[in-house]
Structures are given as structure tokens and as C-alpha cells.
């Protein structure tokens, strides 16, 4: 997992409530055998005018000119500004995979669906909660300023606006530690590698047949 420390990036809007995981990445893409490469299909039904198929080259598909992510001014965005209950619906981890693959490392919204919120941390995406008024204000500032950027500092738990305003945010200690160090669940378990080796050594004595390769 990529660590998340600091980020300064263009902000793009997803200006509607209850964006579900099927909207983030439609179900036909779940048949894929990969966990990377979902970026071109992020928000597929909103971004394109036709129905996307897995494995298809998206560069020649008709794009929806009214969808903000297709506006030149949001090109290269890495912060997604969203509304309440973002990421509701199924538990598919493909949703944070798609966001991350597209280039979003951080989402700011008033609230999230639980499982999606968890899945973000496991996949190197930082979901930040700000109250609804603050989010509303950020939307207004963003719409008013082309090239609007925010700086996010996870260590300091602070967002800095172009005007110099500093907004603080909450994050659970353990999650912060994992994200700062790029530790996913596997990384966390591997910190106990010595204990695993010690267990294996002990077990090999007690139950050698579990370690004997086939004769």
C-alpha cells in the first residue's frame, strides 16, 4: 500500500448525496481478475454516454461533456469533494481501488458508509470528514476558483485552503499510523514476522508432519 503523508492537489467535485459503490464502479467490472486498472471506469455510467464493458479501451468512448470530471479544469485532480453518505451500497473493495487508480488519494465529505470508509484506509485512500457547512463552503470556493487546490497533511491532521485557512480533521490513531507508513493489514501482520517464525519452530517440533513435504 502506498503511504499517505502530505498531498497538495487539484480538487474535483462529486456534488450529490448517497453516491453508491455501483456508481463508483459499476458491477460489470467486478468480473475482472485484477485489482488495478479500474481508474478509466471510475464513475463509468456518469462519465461516458455508452455502457462500459470490462476490458474495453475507454479512450475512444463518447464522454459525457456535462460530467465535471471530464472538464479540463479538473484534470489531474487528486482530492475528491463529496456529499453525505459517500460510498454506500455493496462492500466491494473495487470502489477504493478505482478511486486510487484514477489518482484520488483523498476524499472530503460530511459522512461515509462504514465499509467503504474502512476499505479506503486499507487501500491508501484518506477519507476525511468535515461538517456539512464546511464542505458546502469548500464546494463554493472550488467552483469559484479554477485550479483550486487543497493541501492535506495527515501527520498534522490539517487541510490548508488556498486562502491560508487551516481546517483540522479527526483520524483514529492506529489508522493514521498505518496510512502514514503504508501498512495494510498484511503489512501489520508482517510486523509480527518474528512471532510467526517462532510459532513455526515450536510447531515443527510438536507436529513435524505438518511441515514434511510429500514423500
Amino acid at each position, binding site marked *: *500500500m502506498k503511504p499517505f503523508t502530505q498531498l497538495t492537489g487539484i480538487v474535483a467535485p462529486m456534488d450529490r448525496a448517497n453516491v453508491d459503490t455501483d456508481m463508483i464502479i459499476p458491477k460489470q467490472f467486478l*468480473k475482472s*481478475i*485484477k*485489482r*488495478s486498472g479500474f481508474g478509466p471506469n471510475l464513475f463509468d455510467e456518469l462519465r461516458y454516454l455508452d455502457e462500459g464493458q470490462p476490458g474495453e479501451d475507454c479512450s475512444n468512448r463518447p464522454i459525457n461533456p456535462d460530467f465535471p470530471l471530464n472538464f479540463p479544469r479538473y484534470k489531474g485532480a487528486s482530492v475528491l469533494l463529496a456529499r453525505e453518505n459517500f460510498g454506500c451500497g455493496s462492500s466491494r*473493495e473495487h470502489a477504493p481501488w478505482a478511486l486510487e487508480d484514477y489518482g484520488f488519494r483523498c476524499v472530503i465529505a460530511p459522512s461515509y458508509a462504514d465499509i467503504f470508509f474502512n476499505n479506503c484506509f*486499507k487501500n491508501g485512500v484518506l477519507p476525511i470528514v468535515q461538517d456539512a457547512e464546511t464542505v458546502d463552503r469548500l464546494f463554493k470556493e472550488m467552483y469559484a476558483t479554477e485550479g483550486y487546490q487543497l493541501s492535506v497533511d495527515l501527520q498534522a491532521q490539517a487541510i490548508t485552503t488556498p486562502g491560508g485557512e487551516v481546517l483540522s480533521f479527526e483520524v483514529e490513531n492506529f489508522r493514521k499510523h498505518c496510512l502514514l507508513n503504508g501498512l*495494510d*493489514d*498484511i503489512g*501489520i*501482520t*508482517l510486523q*509480527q*514476522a518474528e*512471532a*510467526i517464525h517462532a*510459532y*513455526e519452530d515450536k*510447531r515443527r517440533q*510438536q*507436529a*513435524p*508432519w*505438518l*511441515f*514434511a*513435504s*510429500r*514423500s
Partner: protein
Amino acid sequence: MTAKTLYDKLWNDHLVAITDEGDALIYIDRHLVHEVTSPQAFEGLRLAGRKPWRIDANLATPDHNVPSDVNERAGGVAGITDPVSQLQVKTLDDNCDEFGIEEFQINDVRQGIVHVVGPEQGATLPGMTVVCGDSHTATHGALGAIAHGIGTSEVEHVLATQCLQQRKMKNMLVKVDGELRPGVTAKDIVLAVIGKIGTAGGTGCAIEFGGSTIRALSIEGRMTICNMAIEAGARIGMVAVDETTINYVKGRPYAPTGGNWDKAIAYWNTLHSDPGAVFDKVVELDANDILPQVTWGTSPEMVASINASVPSPEDFKEPVKRAACERALEYMGLEGGMAIRDIKLDKVFIGSCTNSRIEDLRSAAAVVKGRKIAANIKEALVVPGSGLVKKQAEEEGLDKIFIEAGMLWRQPSCSMCLAMNSDKLGAGEHCASTSNRNFEGRQGFGGRTHLVSPAMAAAAAVAGHFIDVNELLEGAQA
């Protein structure tokens, strides 16, 4: 020393670390891999530059997407007609190659449904922790092991660390005592258990199945029971080790030999719940009360005895259950109050990780021997659980019995259990199936599944509707 349950013992023996809050790291002895839930896990390893922790703990075989048709099967991976299925099977081959994991490929005689293959090879042993990216992994608990299904991110976690982050579950005992009536099998026992405790009855628990009836069952029968623990809400089902277990394991390709065999037996003989061990929940059944079972609805708990009737919504007091019954009857196209015997069938499926072992095929063959399937049965599939089961059945001439009865003898795979290959039910078709899930659409869009034992499925194939298998067995003896 306090008395421990089987689950307590196995849990303690696999504990790598535990925090004060009870978050544990558990060591995994055996990881079984199939093509559906593994590709993203392998991809995750690659993206993170990680390697499998212990290659020899993994064993792979494709099953869900593998065609059961002999012609489609003949072409190997390249012959699979559905491109998505083909890609999944090919990806498994490639990943096993790349990481050096042993795999029984599509046309290897050892290939089959992972839950049939593991025990058959002695790759799952008593006292092990066994996991697989499939919810019916509890099957392996029949050998006295902790076995349960895991999700794709856990598959990656096990590959990379040989461990899982877990919390201990509660202990539950399902005790069945007494002698079974004729024609009643392990499948009927587990359906009766689910009918009694419901599909959430075992939630959060590891179920140990015990009692004299369970002890009298073969390992195949115990596997059928543990297989459906998940349908009772429990991720883990298990049976204590006894002589039957040890005799089953002896001489299998991956089983210990020589001095290791003696050490193993000494340990395995301790794998039972101590007298006086305390369970959080106990359920008891009298074997004599169990008749052949048939599910009438869209959840495994919607089950009745062969001589009973389909319930009506009014039979349920709770509004939620009443609504569920109504919805199920509508989907299944059945009337409340009609006799289970009067349910007409279109197809029959004998197979799946619940009931595709040699004993299952023998019991079905004993019923259809010298008979023909009814005219209204459009298709009756018999799909052995592994290449070795198939071979054994053919040596015993069971294939001929099925074929002469008008049934189709297929290649080992999951087949119509979940309709991922081309074996499917059509909309509205009723199927007597030996599999484990009767959810809406499970065996094909609009398909109507009735779960039964292999003997009952065979009897239904002959009669064209459900009947008590004893009516045919008595006839056979006369």
C-alpha cells in the same frame, strides 16, 4: 486443567499472538486455492512485491468454472467456451506457475471440487487449520480440523503471512443421538438441523457435531454435515477425531508416514471435547425423529419431511417469516398446503461439494439401478466431485447404472451447484438437487431448487416428483 472443547484445543494450538482485547493472529496449516477468489489476491502480492510465506502450505485446483461436458472438457483450458471462465482458469494456472504452487489442473485425474480434493488427497488432516476462499470450506472440519471460508483480501493475507487476524468464536454443540431410520442420510440430518435452528442459528459460533448418530457416520457423511454449517449461519463445523477419521486418512498421498504417522495419531487422539467441556449453546436432536427432507422454499431453513405439506404463510406467526414464506411460494410457484410429494420436477442434479463423493454416488445408484428416469425429467446430471471419485465410480460400474437409467454422467466440477459453467436451470424449472443452496437464481435465472439427499434425488428422478426413497428401496429388495 479446565475441560476444553475441540474448538478450544485447536484454537490454542494455532495461536501465534493475542492482544488483551482478544484480537488474535492464527496460524494456517493448509490453504486451498481455486480460480474464482484468488486472482486479485495474487495480483495484490505482485503489486506489493510480496512472496507467499510458505509455498508448500498451498494447494490449488480449478472447479467453479470448469465445464462438466466431456467434449468441452477435452480441449483443456483452451476448450472452455465462456471467455470469462476460461480467463479465470488460465489465470490460476499462470499464478500457480509463477509462484510455484502445486496445482491439479483441469484434466489431471486429481482435479475436482476443492472440498472433495483436499480430504481425498490427505492434504487436509485432523488438527489442521484449513482455509479457502469459499464459504463451504467448513467441509474439512469433518476430519477434526478448524476449517472456514475467507474473502479475497484474506486469501492474500494468508498467502503473504500464513496467518489470519481473527477473534475467537463461541462454542456450539449440535448433538444427534439414536439410530437413523432407513433411507435417512447425513444430508437429511443437516437439513433437519437447519430446519430446527434456522439459517442464523449458528451465527458467531463454531459448531461441533456430536452424538452417537454422528459418530456412526462415515467421513463422507460427516463432510456433508460440516459442509452445510454455513447454511446454519456458522463459518465452522467440526467433528471430533475417532477411529473412523484415522482409518480414512491412512495411506492418502499427503498423509504422514512412518514415525510421523505414529506421532500424528498420538496427537489426533486428543482431538475431541473433554468430558465436562462447556458449550455456549447446545442443540439436541433425536435421530429417530428425522425423515427424508426436502426444501420447498428459497432458504435452506424452508425444509420439510417427505410426508409433510408445503406450509402456508398463515402457518407463521412472525410477520417477517410470513412475508418470507409468501415470497418464497411465489418464486417457487407452489401452493401452501400442497403435499411435498406432489411437487413436479423438471431436472435432477446429483453433485456439489455437499454430495458428490463415492458414497453419495453409490447411494443414488442403488436407487436408480434397473430403473428409468421419469418422462417429465428433462435432464438428470450426475457430476462426480473429483477425477478420482469418477474413476472409482466407473470401476464399480456406477456410471453405467446412471446412463442406463437415462441420466448424464459428467466430468468433475461444481457444475449446476452455482451455474458458473454452462449447466443451468431454465426459468421456472424445478430441480431436485443435492447441493447446498436454494437461493433465488442460484442454479440459473428463475430456477427453482429443492435440496435433498442423493438417494432422494435419485428417487425423484425415477418418480418425476418427490417420493420417499424407501418406497423404491423396498421395491428393490423384493
